């Protein structure tokens, strides 16, 4: 009982710390938010219009269907960014200040502390950014979604997948420290291969096949199915199939925990958990 209480207190403290760090980054989010909104509004008329762009004949009218597609594709990446990219910066800060070693005084497994403490903050930040984006963009063009509780299933599985991916990045961070550009590259690669989930775009077959193995593609395809296509989320196979999302979530979570343990062990052996 006492161990459970200690564990919960420890997890709660990490979550609180994550939220405090998130609050301290509010200026950056406030600076970036309007730009994200402008970016999505302007990218809507350009989506899939390469020929018109080259000819300088883009119709700059806001199209509800296209913008809805884009926003639904982009929002999961706000969580991805908050969980993966910001976890990296936070860990680097903890390594520099020497507080990362304190994690090992906790009764909870280190991977749970590292990832778990960030999840609540990342979810809060992502929901705030998503809500603000939705508000700003829908002031210019109506966004049409089929709001269904079924969308929570791919959303939750996406969160688990991203947590797994973030643990791989976290492990690499404590092992190699300055991996920010690898981090950015990894995120863009995940975005590129998720493009196959956007209904308006037709990527080459090999790319669509490869996209299924990347963290966000299956969940985004499922979200498209339920929120734009009015379909269910329980179809087992195909783009966004439930089996694929479950396999992706389980595989990335397991890979993340294993990778974190391996990199953590290497960092402990080298004594580099607190050295910069």
């Amino acid at each position, binding site marked *: 009982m006492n161990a459970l209480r200690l564990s919960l207190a420890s997890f709660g403290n990490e979550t609180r710390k994550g939220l405090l760090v998130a609050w301290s980054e509010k200026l950056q989010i406030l600076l970036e938010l309007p730009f994200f909104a402008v*970016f999505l509004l302007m990218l809507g008329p350009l989506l899939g219009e390469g020929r018109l762009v080259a000819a300088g004949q883009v119709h700059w009218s806001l199209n509800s269907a296209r913008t809805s597609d884009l926003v639904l594709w982009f929002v999961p990446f706000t969580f991805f960014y908050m969980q993966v990219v910001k976890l990296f910066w936070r860990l680097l800060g903890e390594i520099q200040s020497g507080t990362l070693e304190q994690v090992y005084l906790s009764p909870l497994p280190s991977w749970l502390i590292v990832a778990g403490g960030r999840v609540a903050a990342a979810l809060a930040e992502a929901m705030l950014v998503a809500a603000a984006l939705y508000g700003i963009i829908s002031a210019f063009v109506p966004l049409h979604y089929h709001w269904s509780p079924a969308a929570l299933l791919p959303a939750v599985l996406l969160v688990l997948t991203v947590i797994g991916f973030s643990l791989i990045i976290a492990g690499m961070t404590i092992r190699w420290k300055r991996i920010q550009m*690898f981090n950015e590259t990894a995120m863009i690669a995940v975005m590129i291969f998720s493009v*196959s989930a956007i209904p308006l775009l037709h990527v080459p077959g090999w790319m669509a096949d490869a996209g299924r193995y990347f963290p966000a593609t299956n969940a985004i395809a499922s979200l498209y199915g339920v929120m734009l296509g009015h379909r269910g989320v329980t179809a087992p196979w195909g783009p966004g199939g439930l089996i694929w999302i479950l396999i992706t979530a389980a595989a990335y979570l397991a890979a993340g925990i294993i990778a974190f343990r391996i990199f953590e062990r290497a960092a402990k052996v080298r004594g580099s958990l607190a050295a910069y």
Partner: protein
Amino acid sequence: MTLPAPPAAGGSAVTARIAGNEAGKQGRLLMSRRGLVAFGVVAGGANFVLFRLLIGGGHISTEMVALTLPGLVLGWAFAATMAVQGAGDIAEEVLGGTLEQSQLSPARPSVLLAGRLAGLTGQGLAGAVVLGLVFGVGFGVHYTIGPGVLVPLLLTIADALGYALLMTALVLRVASIGAIVHVFNMAIMFFGGMVVPVYAFPHGVEMFARVLPTTLGVEALSTTLAGRGLGGAWTDGTLPWLIVHVVALGSLAWVTYLNTLRRARREGGMSPR
């Protein structure tokens, strides 16, 4: 005890050596973080591929690569990288205490700065050239390349240096400079000709885009690369406005740098607060 004043710079040989040391320091920093720089180049290329896929409907056309490659090379790979590296290096020097040490140098701030910018330019150019070659050769892009191309190219490099210097200067004054650089770089990426050619934007957005660093340079360069020569870039107004932009941004950056440096010396802003 009174500290002896540092000796005055003894002529052009000493000045050149000091500037060379600064440039060499940047070169050594580049080598020490070559993995990071390489991933930066890969990230730039991946960003480009992502936008080409989104706008090309899932496919990448040679025409769109040709139209937007100058924006990638000069805007994102060169200007944005230099701003991040310049600001990051100064921030690291402040934290490490070495920025204060550099003030003991007998050379004027302009000499130290020239060396620093020369090193940064080399670093930025390395990534820009790699990306230009990979996409240019990889997609079989054909440009009309003549001596006239050098004019907008060099002016754009000067414009990018002005931008990087401004961001570097603001590190000493603005706490949230990381976020500001990020937002400016995103604006350069989106409006600077890398996502779509600037002429594709609505008129008002086109005007806004031209205020941003490197946009006018990318436009003037694209005109000359398309075979319309310097005359074409002059007639459509991009080249004269580029010259004005380079002078204005360079002057603003230089004045800001000197002011923030003076203020940091006076208020102790050169070491961690």
